[in-house]
């Protein structure tokens, strides 16, 4: 696959919300991050540290009040199918089958007829074969997550934003899907930004882990994961990296 290396540049991002009582809540303040090439970057930090806010800004669903945010040198002005987003609980279209959920983006962009065979490819890759005609309420949580991932990956995005996509799943299912994400990433050569609470998941999947502080969200530190895939979760180096992340998180408590 020939892909231009697309970089993401976030500089001094500021995003302030107003809560129900009219008080200001600073979600992000002076947040900067630079991602080059097809990296998998993990964002980890306590609840309310602005991780999800950052994903929404990159997705173009929200605008920052200060700072700059650009992809490939172009500022982000709104949503674009080149930047995919997968929500925590899959957020599938309940009235569409697994097949039609995955095909949604192709149909919305009117390229379904030309690229129909790719739906089956993605279904096979994600291990959803045989469930094409099932509705979301008929499949397990793991399959729903895989459908949501396939729905995003089929668009061949430059950036995929994963907002705790596996947090509601059991450990075994999660491990399987983590390997599928690594596989998909290798094929797609995309930037993946993964928001997670699970340190092990971050070390297993990511090339780089950004540890963030609680409100307002700032970068506390960074841990580079220089282990080759497939990674061994019980290996000493893996555990040392987990400890390093934990240490950064602990420092601010």
């Amino acid at each position, binding site marked *: 696959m020939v892909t231009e290396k697309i970089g993401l540049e976030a500089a001094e991002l500021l995003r302030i919300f107003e809560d129900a009582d009219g008080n200001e809540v600073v979600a992000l303040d002076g947040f900067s991050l630079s991602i080059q090439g097809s990296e998998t970057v993990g964002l980890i930090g306590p609840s309310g540290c602005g991780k999800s806010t950052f994903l929404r800004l990159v*997705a173009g*669903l929200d605008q920052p009040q200060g700072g700059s945010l650009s992809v490939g040198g172009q500022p982000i002005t709104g*949503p674009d199918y080149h930047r995919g987003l997968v929500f925590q609980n899959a957020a599938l*279209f309940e009235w569409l089958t697994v097949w039609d959920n995955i095909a949604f983006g192709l149909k919305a*962009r009117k390229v379904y007829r030309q690229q129909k065979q790719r739906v089956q490819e993605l279904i096979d890759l994600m291990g959803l074969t*045989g469930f094409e005609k099932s509705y979301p309420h008929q499949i397990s949580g793991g399959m729903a997550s895989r459908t949501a991932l396939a729905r995003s990956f089929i668009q061949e995005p430059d950036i995929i934003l994963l907002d705790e996509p596996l947090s509601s799943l059991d450990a075994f299912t999660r491990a399987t899907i983590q390997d599928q994400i690594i596989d998909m990433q290798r094929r797609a050569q995309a930037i993946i930004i993964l928001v997670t609470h699970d340190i092990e998941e971050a070390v297993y999947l990511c090339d780089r882990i950004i540890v963030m502080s609680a409100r307002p969200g700032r970068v506390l530190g960074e841990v580079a994961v220089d282990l080759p895939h497939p990674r061994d979760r019980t290996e000493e180096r893996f555990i040392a990296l987990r400890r390093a992340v934990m240490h950064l998180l602990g420092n601010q408590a």
Partner: protein
Amino acid sequence: MGRPGSLDLAASPQGRRTSIKRHEQRVTSIRELFWMLLPVSGLLIALGLHYGLPNVYPLAYHPKTYGPVLIGLGAIYIALMAAACFWPALRRRLRHFSGIFFVLALTLAALDVATLKTGWLRLPFVPSPDKILSVYPDNAAQFVENFLASMKLLFTGVFLGTLAGVLSGILMGWSRIANYWISPVLKVIGPVPGVAWLPIAMVLMPSSRAAGLFLIGLALWFPLTLMISTAIRDTDVRLIESARVLGASELHILTHVAIPAAIPAMFTGMFMGLSASFGALIYAEMLGVKAGLGWYIEWSRAWGEYAKIFATIGIFIVLFFALIEILFRIRNHAMKWQKGVVRW
């Protein structure tokens, strides 16, 4: 769901339940037979009382319809029982309704005894079952004519009301400007029962038929608009954002996310509106439109022919039951994607 060989996991416990049911079906027999024969015994009691007791009220009344109808019902039931031997689903249903059928037969017998056989309940207000049933063959032409007139008015009104309700519901749900201008109309006119407008509608509309259409349409328009617009506005924001990120235009999101998400609410609105529209139909016909079953009720009342009123109500029962049932079937088909659809 529950198709043999289907792969869906969520359906499997249900599949197991039906197989247990099927097992029960095989082992029960005598108790089941007793329950299934219960309606037959009810009909026999009714027949025995009808042919065994003399007809005393009114004098010189010769019943002709009630007896044959009882025999016909019995024949239909026995035919169903025979068919049920080879059709377990039908057997379950017959078994389920047998108690109700039994009590129904006894109620008919009681009415027969209280009127024709003793005169405890007096004419013209409470006619015997034979007199009510005889209305149909004696006035068949009138019934057909008025039935068709009612159907034409009802379906035209339901069609127009649904069209208006769906359009304004979608418009209000999606556009803030439309919501600003339509919602006061909805809030002021909607809660007033449509029938209150009838005298004014009769004067302002070009014909009494048009006034009837307006009333029936209004009965549907209000709940539909309210339910659809609320549902569209309450569409899960994550679904809309997912669609947006997948490259869907605003129009595509409306037609492929917001409207499908509002379909359950649309059916709820249809049920509410349809019930209200039946009332509007009868009221409009009784007071304005000089045709239809509602008018026939009013005309029979003026002549003191209460048997005809009972007979017309009988038609309404069958008709409205069938219409609601059809709507339920359509909904269950349209919403097969939803878990645990409510049945009635």
